[in-house]
Each structure stands twice: as structure tokens, then as C-alpha cells.
């Protein structure tokens, strides 16, 4: 049986939603197209529109540091401005990425059970055929396997999030690229 949601958790969830709205507004206001943060094991990633890598489009891409190196203590912590993000333009061009997509509509699960660690984390080296996540629909558990060997560069979803058919699940940098 799944655990009951405590009042405290509920309140925190609401807080996050409120904070999320603020973040999204701020991102639109400053034309920031990509944002990622991690807090208490909760990770959020927001992408707006197309990420352009060309230098002529400086200022369109922002990339915040991982929480592991710069812990964000409050959701309202200032986000890097586009100007300061210039030097941090993503070092991996998106065309390198092999994107793994969902074959069914369902729910994304990062691990085999709530207690288990996630199948993969960003930065993990993976083998072809390795299980990356589970998409569940009507109690059909679909184990998503890596189609290629490489390194996990992107995880586009959080545990428990709904998934559409064909939606991007993982970005993999193929081995040898």
C-alpha cells in the first residue's frame, strides 16, 4: 500500500507549485530558455522553445549549475542572468544526443520500487539493453532499455510524472562521440 500523504508533505507540494509558477514567470520575463535545479532530492528542469547554440544568439541559453555543487537553499534564490550564463553555454551540442522516447502513454518510474535507487543518473555510463526506467499503464510495466551504449546526459522526467506517447525520456551521448 502506498504511504499516505502527510499534511506537511502536502503543504510542501503546494509551496513547490507556487515557487514553480514564480520560476516560470521569471524565466519568461528574462527570456531564459532552460533551467534546472535540485533541492532535497527533487529535481526540476524547464525548457522553453528551441535552444540555440550559435554565438550570435548569446543570451538565449542559460544553464544553472547542478545543486550538488551549488546547493540552492530556497526556490527564490536568484537565477543566473543570461549575461552571466554566456560562458556556460552547454558543451554538448543537442545533435549529439540520442533521445530515447516512450512507446506508450503512462507514468514514468525512475526505479523498480519506491525504496530502490534509480536505474540511472545523469553522468552514468550505460550499456545497450540496460534498463533505464519503467513506464506504467494499466499495470503494464514497460521496461525501457537503452537502444545504444553511451552516457546519460539528460533525464527529462521526474519519478511519477505522466508521459505521452513518443515523449523524450532520456538524452544519451553515444559511446565514442
Amino acid at each position, binding site marked *: 500500500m*502506498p*504511504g*499516505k*500523504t502527510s499534511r506537511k*508533505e502536502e503543504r510542501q*507540494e503546494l509551496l513547490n507549485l507556487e515557487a514553480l509558477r514564480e520560476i516560470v514567470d521569471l524565466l519568461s520575463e528574462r527570456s531564459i530558455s532552460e533551467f534546472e535545479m535540485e533541492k532535497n532530492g527533487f529535481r526540476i528542469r524547464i525548457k522553453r522553445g528551441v535552444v540555440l547554440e550559435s554565438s550570435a544568439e548569446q543570451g538565449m541559453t542559460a544553464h544553472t549549475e547542478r545543486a550538488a555543487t551549488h546547493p540552492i537553499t530556497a526556490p527564490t534564490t536568484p537565477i543566473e542572468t543570461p549575461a552571466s550564463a554566456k560562458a556556460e553555454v552547454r558543451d554538448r551540442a543537442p545533435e549529439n544526443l540520442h533521445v530515447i*522516447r516512450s*512507446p*506508450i*502513454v*503512462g*507514468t514514468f*518510474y525512475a526505479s*523498480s*520500487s*519506491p*525504496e*530502490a535507487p534509480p536505474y540511472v543518473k545523469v553522468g552514468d555510463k550505460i550499456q545497450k539493453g540496460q534498463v533505464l526506467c519503467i513506464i*506504467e*499503464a*494499466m*499495470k*503494464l*510495466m*514497460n*521496461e525501457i*532499455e537503452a*537502444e545504444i551504449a553511451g552516457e546519460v546526459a539528460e533525464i527529462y522526467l521526474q519519478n*511519477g*510524472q*505522466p508521459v505521452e*506517447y*513518443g515523449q523524450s525520456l532520456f538524452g544519451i551521448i553515444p559511446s565514442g562521440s
Partner: protein
Amino acid sequence: MSQPTDRRMDRLIHLLAENATVVMPGPKIAAEIGVTRATVWAWIERLRSLGVEIQGYPATGYQLRVVPDLLTPSLVRPELGECEIGKKIVHYFLTGSTNTVAMELAADGAPHGTVVLAEEQSAGRGRFGRAWYSEKSSGIYVSIILRPTLPPAAAPILTLLAGVAGHHAIRKITGLVTDIRWPNDLLISGKKVGGILTEMSAELDRIHAVVVGLGLNVNHRSMPRDLRSIATSLSLEGGRRYSRVHILAALLKEMQRFYLLLQERGSAEVVRGWESISSFARGKRIRVLRNSEEAFGLTQGLEPSGALRVRFEDGREEALISGEVLELK
């Protein structure tokens, strides 16, 4: 991990069952199945420990007192006729989980219709690593490998199909009428008698294999204390023991019947069948748990995909694809 049941042991059971009216000399059995007399003795002891009643007569041989209710291939296959599901049966006295074995066999190319059975599971499991209580030779623990030509996005209907097949098989053999809780828990008087875990290996546009795993509580005389309020067995509900072989055979045949209907006519028959069986189909007040969030609503029938239409308290209508559905009493 454990090995599948030795074919020769299965032949020993079959030999004893076929000659149940006579005493079979040990050396004769040994010669017929191609093992030593010591092995025959050891296997007879093993079968006795599993509750098979075998009478031993010093210097003459062995005789079965009752044909055992084991699910070995030699005892199950004669019940199946031409049924494609069950043409190949892999039997274990003990294994971790039949679904795990079946997924591995499927990856190694096992054909459509291959069935994995265990008398006992040491790590029987449901969704999200939850355990399935798998008492020795009391339940049916079966996994079926299917290789449907459906697109992966249409595969979830197979989970409802398994529930419908389970309902009909139980009704046919025991006369007991099970309810189905969306998507496919089999219930009697609100308690679970059967659980289904379906696993799929697929690419974006092609299914490699679907493994339908079913755990059915048949002859349990009692349930463990912590499960008593939520689980029951056919025997506890019907007040008698049932033949596991007969229920299993009926289950595989019903799976075959609905699988063919699905392939030929699409999901309509399965959806209609499910709606006619389940009290959860329409007008049921339910609690939905999703991602540790709770919502209340009223059921409104199934979508052709098998998704459950729900009208939530806030007036919002949704076709439910995931989540735990519980009856609101």
C-alpha cells in the same frame, strides 16, 4: 538460482499417475525414466515433502494414493488440447519469480504461448517491488509469454484481458464469481484472490514480448495475519479444495480465447467483457491514489484503450491510465 523441474522427475510423476492402480517396482521406474534407483528414492522423498501421497511397499515398490495436484507439464498438458498458450510449459518446484524467469526466456527467444509455472515462489512480486505471498502448492503462480502484433501503445489492454480470462476460468471450475477492480485485481467479497503483473519489452513501434504473470490464491486454508483483511483464497470462499490443474487449464484456454478475439476484432470484446463483470465499471465511488496524491470520483465506463473514465469531485473528467483505484465505502 533454481533449475526447472527435471524432465525425468516429471515422467516419474506421470508414470505413477498412469499406474495409480498398481504397485510400481523401484527398479522398473528407474529403468523407464533413465535414472538410478537411489535417484528414484530421493525424488519420491522430495515429492512426499511436497504433500504428494506415495505409498512405499518394502521390496515391491511405490504406489500413488491420490493423483497429485501438481502443475507439472505431464499433468497440465493433457488438459489443454490444441491450446497454443501452454504448448511449451516450464515448471519449477521453487523459483524466485515466474515473471523474472519468463522475461529472461522471452529475451532468449522463447515462442509465443510459453508458460512458466512454479509450485512456490521465493520472491513473488507485484508492482513496484511489492511482494506476492506465494505459499507452496496452494496457489497458481503462472507467467505467460505473448508476442502480439499490436503496436506497443495498444498493449495495456492485455492486462484487462488477463483479468477477464481469470474471472471466467474461476467461474467455470469453481462457480465462484469474482469482481474485477480496475485494471485487473480479482476480488471476492472485496478481498483479493488474484493479482496480475504484466511486463513488456518493446521498442517505439514494436513489441518484443509481453509477460502476463498471475498469482491466484486457490487452496490456502488461511491467509497470513497481515493479509487477512485484504486477501482471501478460492478455498476459503468456496469452503472446499479445488483442482489447481483444472483452474490453470481453464485459465490458459480463456486467455487463448480472448487473445484471439483481441487479435481478430480489436479491444471491443475485452472492454465489453470487462464492463459486464466489474462492479467498478460504472457508478462506483472510488478513491484514486497517484504519486502520493489522492482524489475522489465516480466511474463512467472504459475507453476502448481500457482506460477508466472517472468524473472527479471537482467536476473534471479524466480517462485514468495509471494509479491505484480503491472502492469508497
